[in-house]
């Protein structure tokens, strides 16, 4: 790792490693006490989640190490996996084959190429405007009217969630902030840390104190106690990390509150989609967590708004 961000990034990764070591030790103790024969589902799930976190942090660390190309490729792959998961749950027909092919092999790579080349004017409208108009035309050319509105709407929604929103994480690298040159990767590190830490703390507070459910029909595990405890804890943690960002401590708190609230909303919305489709998880590629969208739901909702807030208030043109 080199460049102006390396020292701060190293400290942050070290702190995350300490958190994970503590979590792993707690996980092992819980396992020895409550699940010595591996039959306590909650404890076993917690433990595999912690192990998967090691893998995810290592992967993100490696991407940071590989620089801008590494980050763009990592999130392009996340988009690919998320798109694969979200389109799996749609009601598309054979007549959608060519528009689905276009989603994967044209829209996704082109969006990330636009991010790579820093074409701001196009990557912010490419999917909401051009894909939005072009894909229904392709679907219509195949001639089936059956369920047409549902099919094109679901396809567009999958693209927005999986490609457009996620691509705003690597897009943070393109912002030009005076006095912060070469350190943009820290914006990604701060965003991902704050939002994911909020998810973790919502889980922890919910398990410890959770009583009143927020939306039992959507997500049995989301409680007011977990929500308030988690977003506040993570916002404080995000504030304490103000020194790696271009924000003052007060600004860092407001930004952290914004991204954790959006992240909570993302978790709720994407839970609702899962309940609607009768599945518990989006996929099962990340042991203990489910699919990519299960893990990224909060980042998906937080990233575009965070990007535009930073761009509007801190970036120069």
């Amino acid at each position, binding site marked *: 790792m080199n460049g102006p961000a390396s020292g701060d990034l190293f400290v942050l990764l070290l702190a995350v490693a300490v958190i994970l070591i503590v979590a792993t030790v707690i996980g092992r103790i819980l396992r020895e006490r409550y699940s010595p024969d591996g039959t306590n589902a909650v404890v076993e*799930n917690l433990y595999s989640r912690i192990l998967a976190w090691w893998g995810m942090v290592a992967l993100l660390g490696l991407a940071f190490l590989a620089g801008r190309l590494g980050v763009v490729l990592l999130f392009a792959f996340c988009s690919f996996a998320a798109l694969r998961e979200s*389109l799996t749950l749609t009601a598309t027909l054979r007549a959608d*084959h060519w528009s689905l092919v276009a989603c994967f*092999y044209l829209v996704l790579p082109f969006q990330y190429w636009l991010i790579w080349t820093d074409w701001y004017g196009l990557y912010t409208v490419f999917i909401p405007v051009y894909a939005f108009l072009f894909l229904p035309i392709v679907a219509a050319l195949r001639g089936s009217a059956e369920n047409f509105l549902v099919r094109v709407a679901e396809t567009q929604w999958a693209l927005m969630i999986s490609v457009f929103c996620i691509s705003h994480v690597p897009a943070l690298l393109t912002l030009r902030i005076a006095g912060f040159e070469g350190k943009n990767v820290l914006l990604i590190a701060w965003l991902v840390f704050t939002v994911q830490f909020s998810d973790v703390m*919502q889980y922890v507070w919910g398990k410890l104190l959770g009583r009143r459910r927020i939306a039992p029909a959507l997500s049995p595990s989301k409680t007011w106690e977990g929500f308030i405890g988690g977003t506040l804890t993570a916002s404080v943690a995000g504030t304490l990390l103000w020194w790696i960002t271009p924000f003052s401590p007060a600004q860092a708190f407001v930004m952290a509150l914004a991204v954790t609230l959006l992240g909570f909303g993302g978790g709720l919305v994407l839970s609702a989609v899962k309940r609607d489709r009768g*599945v518990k998880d989006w996929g099962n590629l990340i042991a203990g*967590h489910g699919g990519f969208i*299960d893990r990224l739901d909060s980042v998906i909702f937080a990233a575009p708004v965070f990007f535009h807030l930073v761009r509007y208030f801190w970036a120069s043109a």
Partner: protein
Amino acid sequence: MDVKGWVRRAAIFLAGNAILLFARFVTAVQPVWAGSAPEQRQRIYFANHTSNGDFVLIWAVLPRHMRQRTRPVAALDYWLTTPLRAFVGRDVFNAVLIDRRPEMRTEDPLEVMLAALDAGASLIIFPEGRRNEAPGGLLPFRSGLYNLGAARPGVELVPTWIRNLGRVMPKGEVIPVPLNCTVSFGAALHVGEGEGREAFLARASAALAALGAPAAPGGTGGGAP
């Protein structure tokens, strides 16, 4: 030194792994062990048939030691038509090739499959006989499954449901759309004593259809990190 044989084995190994890697990339295929365990037993996996890639997915989810002893049953009149297909079908997949054209046959398909079983292999068969493009129900089963099960009662007959692959690559399309697929393995069946052909095939078809019925798959408990 048998250079030619060595090159051939290397080509088979590379082609097999390339096909598996591609299948996993496109489908992120995962096994669901819903009644059978991933154990080394002699089995006949009988599966729904929606795509040419069906047995690749079954192959991809089996543990390596089981995969090496599991052979798909495939149509000789398809797989031996070009050298490339012959290489993939006979050498990479190690398929048990049977001729669908009665007038061209030199060997009875049942005897060919029984010989493979007697050599210790597990088999993958598609009792619908051809690709089923209609959404919903299974086509009527052919008799092969019953004949094999009656002739070798010790072999487990495992219903195997491949979900979603028909959407990844509908018939007539060339480019696959990546979508998550699963392969579910149900509880093993055996041909009952005195059980007739019709009764057994109906039971086997019902077991496979039940495995494919939409049901909420298991999860991790939703929403938590």
